[in-house]
């Protein structure tokens, strides 16, 4: 139905696409660690050694764990399997609160203790008016 040149062009472009997909796939697999924006407390627990590089830890702020001292704020990040204690001095974003997502950037002191230099709030995919939220809570 189609000429030989059309078939050849189709074959050429398909091969080009497949090659490119494969390259991208291999690159993303190889740099998985760099692509991931933060580690979970479980990832930290499973680390073989603690490196002194700046890393990010993310998860949920544990309910009732936020405590403020004069110039410091302490809280616990949990992924519901493991926990890590975080200490931070500075201003936190508006959306930083208990039972909400958080990403802390800083240094590990040990596997259970993290010194944050920067706190980012991670909000979830739920959007609703306050009245609806109240109704859900009452329910």
């Amino acid at each position: 139905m189609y000429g030989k040149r059309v078939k050849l062009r189709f074959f050429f472009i398909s091969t080009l696409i497949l090659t490119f997909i494969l390259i991208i796939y291999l690159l993303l697999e190889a740099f998985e660690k760099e692509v991931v924006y933060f580690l979970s407390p479980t990832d930290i627990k499973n680390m073989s050694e603690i490196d002194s590089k700046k890393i990010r830890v993310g998860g949920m702020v544990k309910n009732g764990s936020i405590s403020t001292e004069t110039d410091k704020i302490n809280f616990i990040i949990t992924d519901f399997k493991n926990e890590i204690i975080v200490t931070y001095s500075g201003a936190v974003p508006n959306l930083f609160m208990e039972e909400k997502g958080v990403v802390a950037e800083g240094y590990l002191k040990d596997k259970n203790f993290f010194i944050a230099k920067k706190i980012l709030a991670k909000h979830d995919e739920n959007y609703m008016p306050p009245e609806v939220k109240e109704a859900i809570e009452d329910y």
Partner: protein
Amino acid sequence: MFNYFEPNKIFSITSKVQKYTIYIFIIVLCIGLFEAIILSPKDYIQSDSVRIMYVHVPSAWLSLGIFTVISILSFFSLIFKNKNFPLICKSLAPSGILFSIIALVTGSIWGKPTWGTWWAWDARITSMLVLVLFYIMYILAWKIFSEKEKANKISSIIAILGLINIPIIKFSVDWWSTLHQPASINILSKTTIHSSMLIPLTIMTAAFALFALLIFLMKYNTELIKIKNKGLDRL
């Protein structure tokens, strides 16, 4: 089927459509803005900053959608040597790049009050930046090569290779841990945006789509006029 192209016939339709599109766009945009700014409620946690969503999300969707269309049409134009598809792709690119930049900028403005940062090198944001770069390459390829055939080939290949980035943008929030939250609007699972916010989002998406259509028709008609002026009724 793939080689049918008559600039004169198409122009007589598209020039009319362009006139109506601008009025529909203005009406839909006014309704959308009224819904988004006045009628829609505050978010229970983000309060008023959630309204950035009504610009950010439609722009992101459209920039992805337009790139996908460009890529698919480029694929067919390369294989079947279609004369019309390159013109369509070329005319779609400006609104595509505009929306991708709007998505990045509004995302940045939204990120500061909610996340606490203007920019993060997470998978979603970085892949979105790659999309902007692909748009820039695509548009530049058309401008750099003065020879039509060569410009078409190179820009088409850029568009086809860039298509691989689209699923990466879409699924980056599911595949890797990112600062960006996962999708709220899902076809297979539950949508997590309350209906009072979904309505303005839908209307704003329609308004932005009409804007993209309008810019597309303006560019496309210009391309058609260029062909007519060369005295080439049939290519």
